[in-house]
C-alpha cells in the first residue's frame, strides 16, 4: 500500500517558472497601482474595488501560469539480505571439533532457509550452496572488502550478513562505509593453541654472483610463544643458513638469514621454521621465493710464465673488458737470469703463490695458466687445490707454449686429471706453422657468430699459428673444437682447442702460444682484428657458463604466476655439438621441487630445435620447474623454475581479526556478532526502505470551471468600474 507525499510545485503555463515570475511582477504592479488610484475613495467602496481587483488579477495569474502540484506515491520495500561466506584457506582451520568453514556453512544454511541469498568469497564472489560447501578448493586469498564493494552494484540488496574470520589479505583497512548495513559475524573466535607462522619474507629478486645476500623474515606467533624457533634458509634444496627467533614482548619476531649466490640463472630459495609442538598450521611454516643471479664482474686470474706477445695481447683484451676484474701475474725473471742490478733497483715483487692459490683461489671465476710451468715455484702442493677448485665449479684454461701442458711437466699431475685431453709424456711440442681446422662448426667458441657454412672459410683466412703443443686423445665427454690439419693422435685429428667438464667446472686447453696471430697478424692481411677478440670473448663467457652460450636454453614468460594461470614456455635445444635438435619429440613436464611430475605433454621441436608452448600452472602454490627431457628418457635438456603464488599472506595470520569485522559493521550501520550463536533470525537483520513507485501531477487551474470563474470576476470588475465611472 503506497502513501502519497507532496513533492513540489511546477508551472505548466507557457514559459514555465520564469514566465510565472514575470506574471507575478505584473500582478503586484496592477494591485499597487489600484491602491494608489483608490486613495481618496470612501472606505467601503475602496475596499470593495480593491478586493475585486486582487481577486481578478490572481485568477488571471493562475490561469496564465497554470501552477500544478506534484505528489509522489511511496511504498515501503524490504531489501534482499545477502549472506557472504568466507571460503578462503584460513577458514579450513580447526575450531574445537569442527572447522571455521563448517561453522560458517552451518549458519549460512540456516539463514538460507530463512530466505537469505548466499554467496561465497575468497579471491572473488561466487554462488554458494551451503548444503554442499566443499565443491570448490579453498581460495588462496581473502578479498573481503573487495567482495562487499562488488555487492554494492546490486540495487536489490538491502543488507549483508558477513561470515568470516576477518583475515583480509589484500587491504589493511576500510576506506569508506558501504551503501548497506553489514552485519559481521566473527567465525573461529577461539584462537589456535599454538601457531608460529612466516608473516613476511623480504628477499632481493636479483643478486650478484659471489655476493652475500640477506633474506629478512618476520615471524608471527599465536598462542603460547615462550619457546625459541629455529628458522632455516635453503637455496636449491640445500640448507645454507639458520637463525633462532625469539618472541619477546609480542607475537612477532624478525630474523636475518644470509646466502652467497654461487651459480648464474634463476634459483629457488625456501625459508622454513621448525614448528613448536602443537603447531596447528603447518602450511604457514615455509615460504619459497625465486631470485635471479647475475654477475657484476667476472673475476679472472691470469698467470703467465714469461712476457710474450700472446700474453700481452690476451692481457690487453681482458683489461679492456669492463665486465672483468682481473688480477695478473707474469714471471718477469727467474733466479738464473743475471739482472746486473741490486734488488732495490728493480721493480719486481715475489710471486705470491700461497696468497693466490691458498687464500684467494676460490674467489676467481676463471683461472688462466698461460705458458706457465709450476715446477720452478714449487707449486706441486697447490695443484690439488686447482683441481678441487674446478671440481667445485671454477673455470680453468691452460694455454700452450714451451712451459705449458706436457712441456710444463703437467702430465700425471692433479691438474692433468681435469684437462679434457690426455697429456703425452715428454716435451711434446712441434714448432712448425699450421692453420687449425674447426671440428665443431656450430660451437660458439668456433662459430664466433658466423653461420656454420662460413666457419671453415673464416678459420682458413686466419694467419698461421707458430707451432703447437702435442695433446693426447680426448677424454670422455670432452670436445675437440679446433684440430690440427694433418697431425693425428689415436686415429683422430690431434686436438688444438679442446673443452670439457670436470666436476662442476669447465676446462679449456689451447695448444699454442700464438693465438695473438688471429688478431694483429690476421688484421695486417685482412684489416680486421675481430677474430681474435671474438674468440677470446666467447671462450671467457663459455668457461664462466654464460647461460646464453649453453646448447639448450629454456625460459618462462613470467617468474611468478597465479594459481592455474597460463605460462608461456620458450626454449632452444641443441646437442653437445650445438646441432639443433630439429623435429625431435621431447617431454615437456611441470614438476614440483621434490621432483613429482604435475603435468606432462609430448612436444615436437621445430626445424631449428625451438619450442614455444603454453602450460597451465598448478592449482597449489609453490615453486615448480618446467623441464624438457628427451621423450625416450634420459637427462633433462633444460629446466626453468617458476613460482605459483598463493600461499603468500593467506595463512600468514591465523588468529581471527574481529577488529576489522567490528569496524565494518559499525561504519556501515550494521551489527557485529562475536559468535555465530549470537546471530538472530534473519527478519531482525532485514533492511526496509521507502521507495517511490509513482508520481501524480495535479493541475486544478486547468479546469473549465476555473476559467469560467476568472471570466466572471473579470466581467464583474469591468461592470462595477463602469458603473462607478471608473475605467
Amino acid at each position: 500500500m503506497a502513501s502519497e507525499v507532496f513533492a513540489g510545485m511546477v508551472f505548466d503555463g507557457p514559459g514555465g517558472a520564469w514566465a510565472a515570475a514575470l506574471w507575478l511582477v505584473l500582478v503586484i504592479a496592477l494591485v499597487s497601482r489600484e491602491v494608489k488610484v483608490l486613495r481618496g475613495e470612501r472606505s467601503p467602496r475602496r475596499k470593495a474595488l480593491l478586493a475585486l481587483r486582487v481577486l481578478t488579477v490572481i485568477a488571471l495569474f493562475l490561469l496564465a501560469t497554470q501552477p500544478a502540484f506534484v505528489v509522489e506515491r511511496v511504498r515501503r520495500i524490504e531489501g534482499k539480505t545477502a549472506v557472504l561466506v568466507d571460503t578462503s584457506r584460513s577458514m579450513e582451520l580447526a575450531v574445537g571439533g569442527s572447522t571455521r568453514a563448517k561453522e560458517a556453512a552451518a549458519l549460512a544454511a540456516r539463514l538460507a532457509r530463512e530466505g537469505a541469498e548466499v554467496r561465497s568469497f575468497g579471491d572473488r564472489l561466487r554462488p554458494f550452496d551451503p548444503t554442499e560447501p566443499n565443491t570448490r578448493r579453498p581460495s588462496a586469498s581473502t578479498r573481503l572488502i573487495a567482495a562487499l564493494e562488488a555487492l554494492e552494484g546490486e540495487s536489490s540488496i538491502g543488507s549483508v550478513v558477513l561470515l568470516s574470520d576477518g583475515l583480509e589479505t589484500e587491504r589493511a583497512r576500510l576506506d569508506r562505509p558501504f551503501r548497506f548495513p553489514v552485519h559481521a559475524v566473527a567465525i573461529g573466535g577461539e584462537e589456535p593453541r599454538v601457531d608460529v607462522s612466516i608473516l613476511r619474507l623480504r628477499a632481493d629478486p636479483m643478486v650478484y654472483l659471489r655476493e652475500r645476500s640477506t633474506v629478512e623474515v618476520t615471524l608471527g606467533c599465536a598462542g603460547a610463544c615462550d619457546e625459541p624457533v629455529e628458522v632455516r634458509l635453503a637455496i636449491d634444496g640445500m640448507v645454507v643458513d639458520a637463525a633462532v627467533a625469539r618472541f619477546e614482548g609480542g607475537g612477532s619476531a624478525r630474523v636475518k638469514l644470509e646466502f652467497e649466490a654461487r651459480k648464474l640463472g634463476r634459483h629457488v630459495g625456501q625459508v622454513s621454521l621448525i614448528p613448536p609442538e602443537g603447531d596447528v598450521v603447518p602450511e604457514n611454516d615455509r615460504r619459497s621465493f625465486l631470485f635471479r643471479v647475475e654477475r657484476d664482474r667476472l673475476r679472472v686470474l691470469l698467470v703467465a710464465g714469461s712476457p710474450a706477445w700472446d700474453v700481452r695481447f690476451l692481457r690487453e683484451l681482458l683489461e679492456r673488458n669492463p665486465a672483468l676484474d682481473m688480477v695478473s701475474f707474469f714471471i718477469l725473471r727467474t733466479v738464473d737470469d743475471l739482472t746486473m742490478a741490486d734488488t732495490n733497483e728493480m721493480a719486481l715483487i715475489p710471486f705470491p703463490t700461497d696468497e693466490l692459490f691458498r687464500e684467494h683461489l676460490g674467489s676467481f671465476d676463471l683461472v688462466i695458466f698461460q705458458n706457465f710451468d709450476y715446477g720452478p715455484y714449487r707449486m706441486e702442493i697447490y695443484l690439488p687445490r686447482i683441481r678441487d677448485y674446478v671440481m667445485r665449479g671454477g673455470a680453468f684454461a691452460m694455454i700452450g707454449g714451451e712451459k705449458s701442458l706436457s712441456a710444463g711437466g703437467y702430465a700425471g699431475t692433479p691438474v692433468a686429471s681435469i684437462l679434457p685431453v690426455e697429456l703425452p709424456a715428454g716435451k711434446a711440442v712441434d714448432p712448425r706453422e699450421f692453420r687449425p681446422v674447426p671440428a665443431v662448426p656450430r660451437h660458439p667458441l668456433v662459430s664466433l657468430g658466423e653461420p656454420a657454412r662460413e666457419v671453415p672459410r673464416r678459420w682458413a683466412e686466419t694467419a698461421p699459428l707458430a707451432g703447437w703443443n702435442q695433446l693426447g686423445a680426448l677424454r670422455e665427454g670432452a670436445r675437440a673444437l679446433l684440430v690440427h690439419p694433418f697431425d693425428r693422435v689415436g686415429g683422430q685429428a690431434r686436438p688444438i682447442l679442446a673443452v670439457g667438464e670436470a666436476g662442476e667446472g669447465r676446462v679449456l686447453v689451447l695448444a699454442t702460444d700464438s693465438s695473438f696471430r688471429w688478431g694483429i697478424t690476421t688484421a695486417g692481411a685482412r684489416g680486421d682484428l675481430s677474430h681474435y677478440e671474438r674468440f677470446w670473448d666467447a671462450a671467457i663467457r663459455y668457461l664462466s657458463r654464460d647461460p646464453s652460450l649453453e646448447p639448450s636454453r629454456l625460459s618462462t614468460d613470467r617468474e611468478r604466476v597465479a594459481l592455474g594461470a597460463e605460462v608461456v614456455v620458450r626454449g632452444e635445444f641443441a646437442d653437445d655439438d650445438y646441432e639443433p635438435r630439429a623435429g625431435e619429440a621431447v617431454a615437456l613436464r611441470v614438476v614440483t621441487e621434490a621432483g613429482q611430475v604435475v603435468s606432462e605433454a609430448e612436444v615436437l621441436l621445430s626445424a631449428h630445435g625451438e619450442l614455444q608452448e603454453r602450460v597451465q600452472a598448478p592449482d597449489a602454490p609453490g615453486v615448480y620447474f618446467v623441464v624438457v627431457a628427451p621423450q625416450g628418457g634420459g637427462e633433462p635438456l633444460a629446466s626453468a623454475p617458476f613460482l605459483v603464488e598463493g600461499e603468500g599472506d593467506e595463512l600468514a595470520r591465523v588468529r581471527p581479526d574481529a577488529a576489522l569485522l567490528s569496524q565494518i559493521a559499525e561504519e556501515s550501520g550494521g551489527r557485529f556478532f562475536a559468535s555465530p550463536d549470537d546471530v538472530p533470525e534473519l527478519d531482525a537483520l532485514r533492511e526496509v526502505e521507502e521507495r517511490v513507485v509513482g508520481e501524480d501531477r495535479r493541475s486544478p487551474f486547468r479546469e473549465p470551471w476555473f476559467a469560467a470563474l476568472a471570466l466572471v470576476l473579470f466581467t464583474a470588475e469591468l461592470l462595477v468600474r463602469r458603473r462607478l465611472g471608473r475605467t
Partner: protein
Amino acid sequence: MRASILASITVVWLALALPPSTLAIGEATAFEFRGLALRGLGAEPRPTARKRISWAIRTRTSVETNLDPGRVSLTDRALFDQPFLYLAGEGGFPPPSEAEIEALSRFLRFGGFLLVDATRPDDAAFDASVRAMLARALPSERIAPIDPGHVLYRSFYLVDRPVGRVEGPPHLEGIDLRGRLAVVLSRHDLGGAWARDNLGTYEHSVTPGGERQREMAHRLGVNVVAYVLCLDYKDDQVHAPFIMRRRGGGR
C-alpha cells in the same frame, strides 16, 4: 710521490728453483728486436745493437728473444708477425709512400710498437723526417713527452731518466693510443750504448756517465721490451692486493 710508489713495489724476487731455458714452440713467437728499414735512410748506424740488446734481455729476464733479429720494410708481408719495430738512423729520409704510411698506421693501431732512436740529440733532419712520417701515419695523435712516472720507467728496472750513448734530453717522447704507448722516441743513441763487436768489445764510448750510463741504457732497453710485452702490468700489481682483499672466500 713517485719515490713512494716505487718503494712500495720494489720487492725482492724469490723464485725457488731453476727453470730450464728452452726455445719457444716456434722461433716466431720469441721476441724479436726487429729493425725497420726505410727507403733512403741508409744502413743501420749501429748494426750490432739489436743483437746485443736481445742477448741482454734474454740473460736478464724471462723473455725469450730471437738472437738473430732481422729487419723488415713497411711493405714486407712479415711486418705483422712481430709487433715490435726499432728505427735507428742518421739524417733525413724521403717521405714514405702512401702504402708504407698506411701499413705503419695499421701496424701501430692494431697493437704494434715502434722505438725510434736518433744517434745524436741534435740530428734535426732525422727528427723532422720521423715526425713527418708519424704525423701522416697517425694524423690525429700528437707526440708528447713521456711523464717521468710512466710505467715504462719501472716495467723491470727502476730508471730515473733516459740515457744512451749520450745523455740527451731529460725525457723520452711518445704517442699514446688508447692508454698504450705505441711509439717511443729517444734522442739518446740507445743503440750506440748497446753495440758491441764480435769480440764483445763495446763499439762506442758513453758520455758523460761512462759504464754506469751504459748500464742504465741497457736497463732502459730492457724496460722498453718489458713494457711492450706487459703494458701497464706494473700498475696492476699495485692494485692487485686490494682487488684480492675485497673478494672474500669463494669456492
